[in-house]
C-alpha cells in the first residue's frame, strides 16, 4: 500500500525563475531554507541584478493556527486516554468504550468547526474569512468521514440498525434531507409511514421487520398499479420514490445534494435491512447513477466509497493524499488499530503503519514552541520507533528560556535519556561559560554529570578568585552538597570556599585543618598551593597558636615540595625575574612564619596546660 500515489504537491517560490536559476537549501528542525543560486558558475563572479531572497519554507502543518491548537490539545487528551485504558477494555464494554472515544474525537472536530465558523462569519468579506470558511468545510469533511468509519468499522452496525445509523449520518451532515422527509411524511398514507419510521428496538427481529416492510412495499406497489395516484403526478412520483424507483429518486436530485444521500435514500426505500457486506454494491451504483457520467469522482467520494467497501487501508491511503495534515489519519488509524482492525489485515503492516502515521504527526508538533510537549506523548506510545524519534527531536528544541530548558530536561530525565540530558546541559553550560555566567555554567555541568566541564568551570572560578580576591555565585558553591564529588576540582572549589567561610566565622582551628587537608589529600591542584600557603599566613600570625606542631611540619613539607619542584628557567626575562623575586619573598615569609609557629606550638604542647 502506498499512500503517495497522488502527484507531488508544488510549492511556488516567489522571486525565483526556475528557468534561469537554481536553488540551494538546508533543512532545519521545523523549516527549510531555500535560496536562489547558480550551480554552473563556479569560480566566475557574476554581479547579480536585484537582490536574492532567502525563503523560509514550512510544511503545511496547522500547528500555527490558534483555533486548531484546541483540536490538537484536546485530541491529544483523548489519544493518551485511549492508550491508557487499552488494558482495561474487555468484552462487551470494549466496543461501547471505543465508540465513545470515537464520538469524543468527533465532538472535538465539531467544536473546532463551530469556532472557526464564527470567525468565518465575522470576517465574511476578507481573504482570511474565506480561508476560515474553507477550513470549516475541510473539518466538516473530516467529521463526515470519521462518522462513517465509526458506523461501519467501530460500531459495526449489523443489518437493520445500519440504515438507521446511515440515516442519522446523512441527516447530520446534509440539511436538505429534512425537506425530503417532510415531503414523505406529508403524503397520503401517514400511518403506514409512521409504523415504518418507528423502527423497533429489541422487540422485533430482523425477519419480522423485513416481513412487515415487504408487506407495506407490496401495498404501495399495488396502489401504483391501480392508478390510485394517477390524478396527481406529484403523488405518483412520490409513490415511485417510496418504492425505491431509481429514476424517480434521481428526478429529485436538487434535494439530494450528493450521491451518498442518494444511496441512503435508495436503501431506505428499497433495502432497509441492507447488510453491511452488501453496502458496496449499492454504493458504487449510487455514485455512478448520481454522477450520470457528467463528472468524475472527487477525493471525498473515493474516501467514502472505500469506506462503504470496508477497505480500511484504502480509506487511510486516500485520506493521506487528500489531507496534508497527518492529524486525521494518525488518530483515526490509531483508533482503528485499537479496534484490532488493522491487525486483521496484516499484523506487520498494521503496527508499522500506525507508528508511521503517529510519528509523522508528532514530528510536525515538535516544530512548535509549546505543542512539542504533545509530541512527546505520541512518541511514548510508539514502542518500536518512538524513542529514537523522540531522541532526535528533543535535542533540537530551542532552549529559549530556562523554564523551557528545564521542561525539556525533565522529559529526558523521566525517560532515562541520559545522552540527551548530557548534551542539552552541555549546550547550556557552554553558552553560560561564553557569557561569563560561571554559576549557571557550573550548575548545568553538574546536571550533565560532566566531570570534565565541571573541572573547567571550577578552574575559572578559582582563576576569578585569584584575580579579584572574591568568589562569585557564593550561594551555588555553598550549597553544592553531594554534587561536589563530581570532579576533584569541583570538590576543591567547594572545600576551599568552606575554608573561607570557617575563617570568616573565626573557627580558626577547623579552617586550619581543612586548609592543610586540601594539600595533603592532593585535592588542591599544585598550581594553587602557593595561594593556599599564603592563605595560611594570617592563621600563622594570630596571637593564639592554631596550627599544631605536627600540622606545621606538614606545611613545611608542602612548602619544600613546592619549591623543590620548581623548574629553573634557562634564560629568565625581566618579568620572569621580577616574578621570581616576588615568589622568593613569599617563600621566605612563609618559612619564617612556619618556623615561628613551630616554635610556639612545640612550647604550647610541651606545657602543662596541654595542647
Amino acid at each position, binding site marked *: 500500500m502506498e499512500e503517495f500515489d497522488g502527484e507531488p504537491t508544488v510549492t511556488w517560490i516567489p522571486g525565483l525563475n526556475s528557468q*534561469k536559476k537554481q536553488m540551494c537549501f538546508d533543512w532545519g*528542525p521545523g523549516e527549510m531554507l531555500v535560496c536562489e543560486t547558480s550551480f554552473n558558475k563556479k569560480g566566475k563572479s557574476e554581479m547579480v541584478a536585484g537582490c536574492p531572497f*532567502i525563503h523560509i*519554507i514550512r510544511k503545511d502543518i496547522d500547528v500555527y493556527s490558534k483555533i486548531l491548537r484546541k483540536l490538537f490539545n484536546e485530541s491529544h487528551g483523548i489519544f493518551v486516554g485511549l492508550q491508557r485504558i487499552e488494558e482495561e477494555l474487555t468484552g462487551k464494554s470494549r466496543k461501547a468504550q471505543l465508540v465513545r472515544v470515537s464520538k469524543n474525537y468527533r465532538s472535538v472536530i465539531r467544536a473546532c468547526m463551530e469556532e472557526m465558523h464564527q470567525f468565518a462569519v465575522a470576517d465574511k468579506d476578507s481573504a482570511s474569512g474565506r480561508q476560515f470558511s474553507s477550513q470549516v468545510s475541510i473539518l466538516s469533511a473530516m467529521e463526515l468521514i470519521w462518522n462513517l468509519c465509526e458506523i461501519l468499522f467501530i460500531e459495526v452496525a449489523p443489518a437493520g440498525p445500519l440504515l438507521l445509523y446511515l440515516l442519522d449520518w446523512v441527516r447530520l451532515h446534509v440539511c436538505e434531507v429534512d425537506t425530503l422527509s417532510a415531503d414523505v411524511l406529508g403524503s397520503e398514507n401517514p400511518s403506514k409511514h409512521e409504523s415504518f419510521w418507528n423502527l423497533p428496538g429489541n422487540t422485533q427481529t430482523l425477519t419480522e421487520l423485513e416481513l412487515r416492510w415487504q408487506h407495506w412495499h407490496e401495498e404501495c406497489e399495488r396502489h401504483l398499479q391501480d392508478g390510485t395516484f394517477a390524478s396527481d403526478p406529484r403523488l405518483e412520483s412520490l409513490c415511485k420514490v417510496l418504492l425505491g424507483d431509481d429514476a424517480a429518486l434521481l428526478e429529485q436530485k436538487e434535494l439530494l445534494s*450528493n450521491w451518498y444521500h442518494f444511496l441512503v435514500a435508495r436503501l431506505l426505500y428499497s433495502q432497509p435491512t441492507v447488510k453491511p457486506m452488501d453496502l458496496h454494491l449499492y454504493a458504487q451504483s449510487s455514485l455512478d447513477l448520481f454522477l450520470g457520467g457528467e463528472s468524475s469522482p472527487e477525493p471525498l467520494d473515493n474516501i467514502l466509497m472505500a469506506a462503504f467497501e470496508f477497505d480500511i487501508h484504502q480509506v487511510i491511503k486516500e485520506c493521506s493524499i487528500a489531507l496534508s495534515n497527518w492529524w486525521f489519519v494518525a488518530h483515526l488509524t490509531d483508533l482503528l488499530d485499537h479496534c484490532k482492525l488493522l491487525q486483521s489485515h496484516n499484523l506487520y503492516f498494521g503496527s508499522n503503519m500506525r507508528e508511521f502515521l503517529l510519528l509523522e504527526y508528532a514530528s510536525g508538533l515538535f516544530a512548535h514552541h509549546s505543542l512539542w510537549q504533545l509530541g512527546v506523548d505520541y512518541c511514548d506510545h510508539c514502542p518500536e520507533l518512538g524513542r529514537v524519534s523522540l531522541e532526535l527531536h528533543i535535542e533540537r528544541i530551542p532552549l529559549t528560556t530556562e523554564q523551557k530548558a528545564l521542561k525539556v530536561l525533565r522529559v529526558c530525565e523521566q525517560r532515562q535519556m541520559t545522552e540527551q540530558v548530557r548534551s542539552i546541559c552541555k549546550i547550556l553550560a557552554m553558552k553560560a561559560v561564553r557569557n561569563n555566567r560561571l554559576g549557571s555554567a557550573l550548575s548545568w555541568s553538574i546536571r550533565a554529570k560532566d566531570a570534565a566541564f565541571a573541572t573547567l568551570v571550577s578552574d575559572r572560578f578559582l582563576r576569578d578568585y585569584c584575580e579579584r580576591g572574591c568568589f562569585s555565585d557564593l550561594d551555588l558553591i555553598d550549597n553544592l552538597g553531594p554534587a561536589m564529588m563530581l570532579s576533584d576540582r569541583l570538590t576543591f572549589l567547594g572545600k576551599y570556599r568552606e575554608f573561607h567561610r570557617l575563617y570568616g566565622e573565626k573557627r580558626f582551628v577547623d579552617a586550619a585543618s581543612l586548609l592543610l587537608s586540601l594539600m595533603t589529600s592532593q585535592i588542591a591542584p599544585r598550581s594553587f598551593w602557593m595561594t593556599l600557603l599564603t592563605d595560611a599566613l594570617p592563621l600563622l600570625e594570630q596571637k593564639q597558636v592554631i596550627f599544631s606542631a605536627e600540622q606545621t611540619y606538614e606545611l613545611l613539607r608542602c612548602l619544600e615540595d613546592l619549591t623543590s619542584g620548581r623548574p629553573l628557567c634557562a634564560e629568565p626575562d625581566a618579568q620572569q625575574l621580577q616574578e621570581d623575586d616576588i615568589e622568593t619573598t613569599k617563600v621566605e615569609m612563609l618559612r619564617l612564619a612556619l618556623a615561628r609557629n613551630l616554635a610556639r606550638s612545640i612550647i604550647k604542647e610541651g606545657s602543662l596546660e596541654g595542647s
Partner: protein
Amino acid sequence: MFVARSIAADHKDLIHDVSFDFHGRRMATCSSDQSVKVWDKSESGEWHCTASWKTHSGSVWRVTWAHPEFGQVLASCSFDRTAAVWEEIVGESNDKLRGQSHWVKRTTLVDSRTSVTDVKFAPKHMGLMLATCSADGIVRIYEAPDVMNLSQWSLQHEISCKLSCSCISWNPSSSRAHAPMIAVGSDDSSPNAMAKVQIFEYNENTRKYAKAETLLTVTDPVHDIAFAPNLGRSFHILAIATKDVRIFTLKPVRKELTSSGGPTKFEIHIVAQFDNHNSQVWRVSWNITGTVLASSGDDGCVRLWKANYMDNWKCTGILKGNGSPVNGSSQQGNSNPSVGSNIPSLQNSLNGSSAGRKHS
C-alpha cells in the same frame, strides 16, 4: 508546504550556501562576494542579520555550523584555497542593543593547494573535528583537542582520493557499533576516473582512515553526497547527487566473515534512482529524522523524496519558481496557513453546489 517568510539576502553577489544552526534559530549564508552573513530569529519570528563580514579572498563555497555543545562556531571554505573556523564573541552590551554580534577567526587551514570545495564538522561524539575536501583530491581531517581554545587545530589525517573532490559527508550514526565513516564524492569529468564515490572508515588499530568501499556504479561526476541520520537502523543510507538522484543502502557484512582488522565490508544496494530533475543534480540533503531527502537540480527545482512505511520512495513535493515577484517589504510572513488540504476539491465535494455538480 508553504513559504512562511522571504528575507532579502543583501549579498552583493551569488549566494552559494545557506545553513541552519542546530536549533533552527540562526542561519548563515555565504557568497561570491567573499563574505558570510549570520542571521538570528527573534522572538516574533523575524530574521535579522546580526553579523556580516569578509571571510576569504575568493568565493565562499560552503558554510556550516558546529554542534552547539562547542559553542557558537562556524566553518567556511573558499576558492582561495583555505578553510576557516570562526567563533562568536559575546560583545559589549551596546552591541547587543544594536543587535549585532562579532565573529572572530580562530584559525585558517591552509594546507590545500587548490580550491576547498566542502567543509563539514564531524558528529559531536567524535569531539570538535572537521573535514575539508579540495580540488586537489585530498580530504583533510582536523581536530581541536581543547574545545575552549579554538585557535589550536591539528591536521590529523590526509586522505588521498586521487580525484578532484567536490563533497564530503560524515556518517552521523553515533552508535558504538559503527566506526567513524566519511563518504567523498568526486566531480572529476575525465573518463578514466572510476571512483566517483569513496567511503573511508576509521580503524582503531591502525589509527588511520582506510578505504572501505567504492560505489562503482556511480560513473558520472558527483556534486553532493549525504548520509542519512540513523533512526536505529543497522545499515546506512547514502544519497548521491549526480546526473540523477540516487539512494544507496550499505549493510555491514558481519565481521567474522571478513579478515579481522580490515575495514568493514558492505553489501551495497541501490534503493532509488530518480531522474525527474532531467538534468544534473547539485545538492542532496536529509531532514533531521532522515525520513525526507531534498534534492536540487539544474532544472531550478527542489524535490522532496519520501519513503512510505514499506520503504517505497516517491517524490512528494516540488519547490519551484515561475518568476512571480516577491511582494511588499523585505520580510513578509504568511500567517494564515490552511487546515491541510492541498486538493481544494475535498472542500468542493462537500458543497453540492460546486461547479460540475449542479444540474439544473
